[in-house]
């Protein structure tokens, strides 16, 4: 994507000196005018508002005064923030590698041409088309202490009941467990990476006497790095903003003892439950900065990504 962006921005306009140029410019602006209006009103205006409000004590109605960096300083005194950051970082740092590895293993398993494999690929992808609300509804039901089927099954094989989302100590584990069902999405990405690797590379390696493990570390992994990188960047951006616990955790997405209180939920809670819009804007800008810094770091350290053969 970044390549395409760069090529689009490079200054090699084709200078066309025919009589259509002026007409074409008018047509061009007419075609992009809805987009420009949209960018101004639904992106630029909100961004400007958000920047200003981040420095204000603002509730959307009556309270509205500048407090400088007050909101940002408040973050360090906000007792919830430690828990929120810890939860968000645990969620991000565990779920991303976990899904990357599991989806790799799954892709490796289904990367063959047996006729039945095709069916399994579709089956493995199926959980990814399930809307988030349905997953929340379903998992809450299955992990219920009284009527939940998971505890019934544990009981049947003689194990003690597991509290899942109903206890602070097991809630994050349960959330990560739930995430495993989305492994099919990563599988698709890995498969498309495998497909892009030329079989001749493997043949050449075989002739040179490389064993299976060497072929894996010297061909499969390096050739898949663009996909790993793409996956890494998008999932870091996604996980840090994740607020899917709104559908699964009690107390409006916070969980027992704030055990599932993630940054994305904290912003929502601050703005719409506490009505502290200024502080919520400040929080969202801090998250935006963290995401930008991490993305930049990923791009800066992306020497390990191999493009082309």
């Amino acid at each position, binding site marked *: *994507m970044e390549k395409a962006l760069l090529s*689009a*921005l490079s200054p090699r*306009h*084709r200078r066309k000196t025919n009589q259509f140029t002026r007409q*074409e*410019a008018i*047509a*061009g*602006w007419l*075609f*992009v005018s*809805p*987009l*420009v209006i*949209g*960018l101004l*009103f*639904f*992106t630029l205006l*909100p961004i400007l*508002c958000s920047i200003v*409000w981040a420095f204000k004590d603002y509730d959307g109605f009556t309270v509205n005064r500048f407090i400088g960096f007050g909101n940002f300083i408040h973050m360090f005194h906000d007792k919830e923030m430690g828990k929120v950051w810890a939860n968000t970082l645990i969620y991000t740092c565990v779920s991303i590698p976990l899904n990357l590895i599991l989806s790799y293993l799954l892709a490796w*398993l*289904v990367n063959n*041409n*047996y006729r039945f494999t095709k069916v*399994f690929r579709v*089956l493995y992808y*199926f*959980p990814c*088309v*399930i*809307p988030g*609300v*349905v997953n*929340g*509804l*379903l*998992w809450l*039901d299955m992990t219920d202490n009284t*009527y*939940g*089927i998971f505890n019934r099954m544990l009981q049947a094989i003689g194990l003690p009941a597991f509290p899942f989302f109903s206890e602070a100590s097991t809630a994050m584990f349960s959330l990560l467990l739930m995430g495993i*069902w989305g492994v099919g999405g990563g599988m698709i990405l890995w498969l*498309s990476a495998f497909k892009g690797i030329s*079989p001749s590379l493997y043949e050449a390696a075989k002739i040179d006497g490389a064993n299976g493990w060497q072929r894996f570390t010297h061909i499969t992994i390096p050739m898949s790095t*663009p996909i790993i990188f*793409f996956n890494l960047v998008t999932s870091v951006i996604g996980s840090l*903003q994740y607020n899917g616990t*709104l*559908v699964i955790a009690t107390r409006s997405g916070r969980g027992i003892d704030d055990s599932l209180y993630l940054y*994305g939920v904290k*912003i929502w809670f601050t703005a719409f439950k506490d009505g502290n819009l200024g502080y*919520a*804007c400040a929080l*969202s800008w801090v*998250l*935006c900065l963290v*995401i930008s810094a991490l993305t930049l770091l990923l791009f800066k350290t992306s020497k390990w990504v191999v493009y082309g053969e």
Partner: protein
Amino acid sequence: MSKEKQIARRNQDTQLKIWNGAKVSALFLLMTIIAVILLFPYVFMLNKSLMTSSMVIDPKVPFFPDFSQLQWKNYVRLFTTNVQGHTFGQALGNTMIIIVFNIIAIPISASMAAFAFAKLHFKGKNIVFAAMMLTIMLPGIVTQIPLYVIYSKIGWLNTLLPFTIPNLFGGGALYIFLIRQYMMGIPNELIDAAKIDGCGYFRMYWQIVMPNCRTILIYIMVNVFVATWSDYYGPLLYMSSADAPYTFAYILFKNFTEGDVAADLANIRMAGGVFMTIIPAIIFVIFQRELTDSTVTSGLKG
């Protein structure tokens, strides 16, 4: 690689054949176990949606419904079930209004901008394009609070307007980018020939470029459908009053997260879940070819 395997296999003796057969069976078995684990929740959801109310509060938690009396009527009951003065039937109607609007508005408004980016030359194009690309990288969380306030000031809260009107203006940067990449693949000769024939720019867009974009437009329509269909977060932000036009995903969310969640109505909730799942699943099956077409997502790689 598997071709080599096949050739090699043919040449080997029966003992190896048995060994290979065992390997394939083991592979098949492993895949089946994984499939059972991954699909277990959804089969259970379907089963539970067909149970009687007394079965769902049975502490033994049966996995299978009573096959002699499958409760298909749970699905009928679903649509008349009332959540805070709204029925699932009405909510489905609201969702459909948004979807119909968006699957027409988004492809058209996004493709118009994409056409200008891909095929027209004009001053300032690169600036607009760069500004648009920056919004892809901007976390959505930054704009959601100001948008809430803006919508409240212009009286859009508790209406369907926030879910429809903004889509007339561009329809999403990522969609524009994908269509642009796709349009770049359409030969410029087609455009130049049309120009020489005196074809206007709008006709060029509508009659020459658009018919060639069938695959990407279907890809986007499916994505818009699924995104709109499963969106509970938008309504959670912009619908606070009790008489707001709730959408299907939102009413389902409210139904199990707020107030007294009646245990004996779990079958109705599960019917809601099955219904919410089955629609996107059908669409994925129908449009599988367009969705897996590599030309569509090729713009995202490299």
